């Protein structure tokens, strides 16, 4: 083996008069590379994005049937305070909430990386695993929004009659804030679930339960107002747990169902839960790493 022409002799190891870590540049690079990685799977991506719009149609049919039946039986034109139009608008808006708060594959990926030992690389390198995953997820979402923006706009345009115009600036601002918090909360909730893999190795059943609960009690399937008056104080319980901030809350804010002091209180609570899950995720990670024995060779 011979020296390359540009080889500069001299002892270099230990030459660590390094520039101070520039977090912003590190983040930018991670983000850029994550986006590039997402774009590799363009086929799966396009298909997955379009497939998400199919259930919309079936839901619209389902709600028309329900409202028709209710009106014929009791002559009522609202269910849990929602008119038919509001219900469809609500359903479409929860799709937006979930586009922010759902984290497909995040928890299972973390658990898998713990199980097969891939997580080691984050323990060895001077990076923060959770920050790394968060940036990866932001990239994931950004690419998704770019791809999904068109179809979403089309669906909303076609369904414009279900909406009673744009909300005012304050409501819009609150809506955007609740979406951003929904993203952060969703991320840290699922990341925490995935990190339980340090103890359980397999988190799929746990995830299944989480998904099921989210589906029904986040307001994804129907407004949680419908649970009020059910036995065992189901409605009260569901309002007390944080799942509603993943779907119901942003949608209800947009529709003007939550206003004034209630809105401020709601946003405050959402912020509280968001911070709680950030802390919980950190603690879980630190405890998990301490327990970690480096499985898989």
């Amino acid at each position, binding site marked *: 083996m011979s020296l390359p022409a540009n080889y500069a002799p001299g002892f270099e190891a230990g030459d660590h008069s390094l520039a101070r*870590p520039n977090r912003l540049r590190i983040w930018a690079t991670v983000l850029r590379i994550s986006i*590039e990685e997402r774009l590799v799977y363009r086929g799966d991506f396009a298909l997955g994005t379009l497939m998400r719009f199919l259930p919309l149609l079936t839901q619209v049919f389902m709600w028309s049937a329900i409202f028709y039946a209710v009106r014929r039986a009791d002559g009522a034109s609202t269910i849990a305070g929602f008119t038919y139009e509001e219900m469809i608008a609500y359903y479409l808006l929860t799709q937006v909430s979930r586009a922010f708060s759902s984290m497909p594959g995040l928890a299972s990926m973390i658990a898998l990386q713990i199980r097969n030992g891939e997580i080691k690389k984050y323990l*060895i390198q001077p990076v923060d695993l959770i920050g790394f995953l968060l940036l990866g997820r932001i990239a994931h979402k950004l690419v998704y929004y770019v791809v999904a923006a068109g179809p979403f706009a089309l669906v909303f345009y076609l369904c414009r009659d279900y909406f009673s115009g744009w909300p005012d600036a304050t409501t819009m601002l609150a809506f955007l804030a609740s979406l951003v918090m929904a993203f952060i909360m969703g991320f840290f909730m699922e990341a925490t679930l995935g990190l339980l893999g340090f103890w359980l190795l397999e988190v799929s059943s746990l995830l299944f339960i989480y998904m099921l609960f989210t589906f029904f009690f986040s307001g994804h399937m129907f407004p949680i107002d419908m649970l009020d008056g059910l036995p065992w104080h189901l409605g009260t319980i569901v309002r007390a747990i944080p799942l509603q901030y993943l779907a119901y809350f942003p949608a209800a804010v947009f529709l003007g169902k939550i206003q004034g002091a209630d809105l401020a209180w709601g946003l405050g609570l959402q912020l509280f839960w968001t911070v709680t899950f950030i802390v919980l995720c950190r603690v879980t990670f630190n405890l998990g790493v301490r327990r970690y024995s480096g499985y898989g*060779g």
Partner: protein
Amino acid sequence: MAIIEIEGLAKSYRIYQKQEGLLASVRGLFRRKYRDVEAVRGIDLTVESGEFVAFLGPNGAGKTTTLKLLSGVISPSAGTARVMGFTPWKRENAYRRRFALVMGQKNQLWWDLPAQESFRLHQQIYCIEPAQFDRRLDELVDLLTVRNLLAQPVRELSLGERMKMELIAALLHSPEVLFLDEPTIGLDVVAQHNIQSFLRFYQQQRKMTVLLTSHYMKDVAALCRRVVIIAGGMIMYDGSLSGIIDRFSGHKVITLVFPGEKPPGDLSRFGEIVEEQGPKVKLKVDRNGIGGALSTILAKHTVEDVSVEDPPLEEVIAEMFSLATEQVKGREPRPQLA
């Protein structure tokens, strides 16, 4: 100057013992048998700056566990270790910027992206100055002859090519300490040789401290002056490769060629006949009895050719491994109900 200091380092794992069969699996839901496996049982080791040390040992000997401890992936059950003055399992960034770990069986690069993207990322997370980064990358890419592969997704590289990329990623930040966990596993002879010559050259140029685990004697013979043999979680030997034979092999091999078709029939009283091919015989003779055996044989028989050799290194080490494993087995604690 000592760069790695290990004292009484130990690591034990608690492992769930699953019994065979469905019924046992159900029972395992309520009452589990655990076994404590002591992967590393209190080792002491000092490595000087610039040394190239090989860890040899059978599977499950504790080599990888030791490397995991030193790179801070896991915490020990007992003992201390200092690498460049840092306690590895505190995982300080200041420490993590100064060492690297390459695992032959694990991929650290972004699978679906070209290796150069991973390198760019390393530049950022290890805070490498752009000019330095370009110079080092240039040098490494030339040494490993992978320039034309930089833009190819990692998943499309061959195992050997990927290993080269892994090495580049690990060396870009110019680590002072490099841990190599079976870097040539699964590679063909040519690729193995390439990686070996690169490592030898680069280590000599950079005076890095390198700890290598490998199953291939060739890696070790080519690279390391110092060999640490670990078996059953303990250090069985620490010294030069050739010293292993002096210390652990009690015999030598005498090869004799006799005139005529067949060797004389009384040779087995000098030692074990390992091989007999026409008039050629290989005798395994006790080290202390070499002189006596030779003079007797030469006095009694006409011999055309004779040579005395050490037994092959692999054989000695294999013998030693099985001996060590036996010893450890005797001390294994029984499984306990928990």
